[in-house]
């Protein structure tokens, strides 16, 4: 059952229409009711950290899936590099989990049914989507952070995600800037920055059958 495996949360509060996630541990899995498919990410700085924690979970789960499958269409060098990416994303995920402590949301499983993971191009295009989305998410989240330490912390990860994104473009033979960095106009030289709501909308298929509610996060 996807629904059951999608989502393991410990200590979550199940409401009629909204799940507010809090705490973690080894409690039994929660199987939401039909009406309980909206998951709130929380509010304030912890909400923002949970938001990026969710994205890191998504990336780590994706790369883990590829590394486990060891598809023959990836060369040894490519698989080595993608294993590096898996390592980095798992480290990001575990770091945020530790940082959030008792405020961390639970561990998600994700729905990759919209991706084509049976071809080299399909895998790399999926990675490109996730990495570009991650960079845009960090670029958009920075101004919402109120703690300078946390701001620098997210910056430390954001540039690594940008390096990943460029590398995945390299593997695809696509220039890492042409489709990302504006060449003309007022934003020439800049890449995309997305709000949490925009990022969650773009990643929505990966959360199905659940939807993530980021309405509690700061907007500016």
């Amino acid at each position, binding site marked *: 059952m996807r629904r059951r495996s999608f989502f393991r949360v410990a200590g979550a509060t199940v409401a009629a229409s909204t799940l507010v996630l809090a705490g973690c541990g080894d409690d039994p899995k929660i199987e939401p009711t039909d009406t309980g498919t909206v998951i709130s990410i929380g509010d304030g700085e912890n909400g923002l950290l949970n938001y990026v924690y969710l994205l890191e979970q998504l990336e780590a789960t994706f790369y883990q899936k590829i590394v486990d499958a060891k598809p023959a269409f990836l*060369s*040894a*060098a*490519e698989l*080595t*590099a993608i294993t*590096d990416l898996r*390592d*980095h994303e*798992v*480290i*990001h995920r*575990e*770091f945020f989990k*530790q*940082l959030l402590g008792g405020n961390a949301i639970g561990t998600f499983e994700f729905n990759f049914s919209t991706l084509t993971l049976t071809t080299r191009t399909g895998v790399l295009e999926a990675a490109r989507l996730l990495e570009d989305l991650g*960079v845009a998410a*960090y*670029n*958009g989240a*920075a*101004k919402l952070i109120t*703690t*300078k*330490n*946390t*701001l*620098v*912390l997210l*910056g*430390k*990860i*954001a*540039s*690594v*995600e*940008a*390096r*990943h*994104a*460029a*590398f995945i473009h*390299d*593997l695809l*033979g696509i*220039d*890492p*800037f*042409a489709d*990302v*960095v*504006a*060449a*003309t106009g007022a934003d*020439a*030289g*800049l*890449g995309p*920055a997305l709000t949490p709501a925009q990022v969650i909308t773009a990643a929505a298929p990966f959360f199905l059958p659940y939807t993530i509610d980021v309405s509690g996060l700061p907007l*500016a």
Partner: protein
Amino acid sequence: MNFFHILSEIEKTDPEVFERFDSRRQVFKHLTGFGKKMTAATLPLALTAIFNKAYAQTTSAPSVTDVLRFALKLEYLEAYFYNLALQGDGTIVVGSGTGNTAITPTQTTFRALFSATNLSSLTKIRTDENNHVNFLRTALASNVIPAPAVSDFDYTGGKGSGTGPFTGVFTNPAIFLAVAQSLEDTGVRAYKGGAPYLASNKDVLTAALNIHSVEARHAARLRTMRRAGAANNAASGVAANATNTSASPKSWISGQDGGGASPAQTAPIYAAGSLPAGTPAGITFPAEDNVVQGPNGTQPGVNLQTALASLNFPAAAFSEAFDEPLDVPTVSAIANTFVRNGATIF
């Protein structure tokens, strides 16, 4: 009480009083705004706040303008570099059809040494860096730093002699890519280090971190080129040499990368910075091989390599997963590698 009278009185003893504010124009804008909603009772308090702010700047953290001006200097350094190598006389390309866009015979020869995809990326990087200069110039408006003379920079690292350790920088692709990677990796660390000082202006913060991510993409692309060679059109498929990431880097920074592309000159780009006065509490500038993350207030941070040992990941992964910020004095020293003696830019 008359604001302007007070200011002119102060100016008699401190001619730079206006310069201590963001700019003369902004002072008057602020004062005009204050005047509308101020009563005689609150006025002395407001004045105190204004002057505290103005006179505290020299000893505390850099202002938003200071950070942007510093970023602009770094962008001049980068843009001139790509311009001199690939197209034009070094000067900034402004808009379309202006600036110097001619390609010299030397540049034509040099461009032919790169594969088609590599040259395509390099010309886009050049465009991006010129655009960063123009973006920052627009953002700074009257506080802009005039474009330095092209001759103020010596990309051989020779301090003006033109015969420094990177001699051949615009004729030998390997040397060019070594310097390019060094400049981009420096830029990433510099923007990251500047971010906390921009927190008061969210638009500027967002733009600066955005440029920061573009520089990181540049750095990764250049690292791929170095790994496989300038003429390799399928560079990405080549594995890094994990035991010599100085010569054959990953697309991300691994440990301190053995001191970078040319350790005698580039080691400081990956090493720890200093901790200048005014650095916000809790922010540090560790070397790129740092594995302790998340110190906050009284919390010491987590040694990820220890805490996550059960993952059995390679030790390098824990430093690779995080880039580190760098402080202004350290970045200035690095940038001065490429400034001629006698020129005061950084």
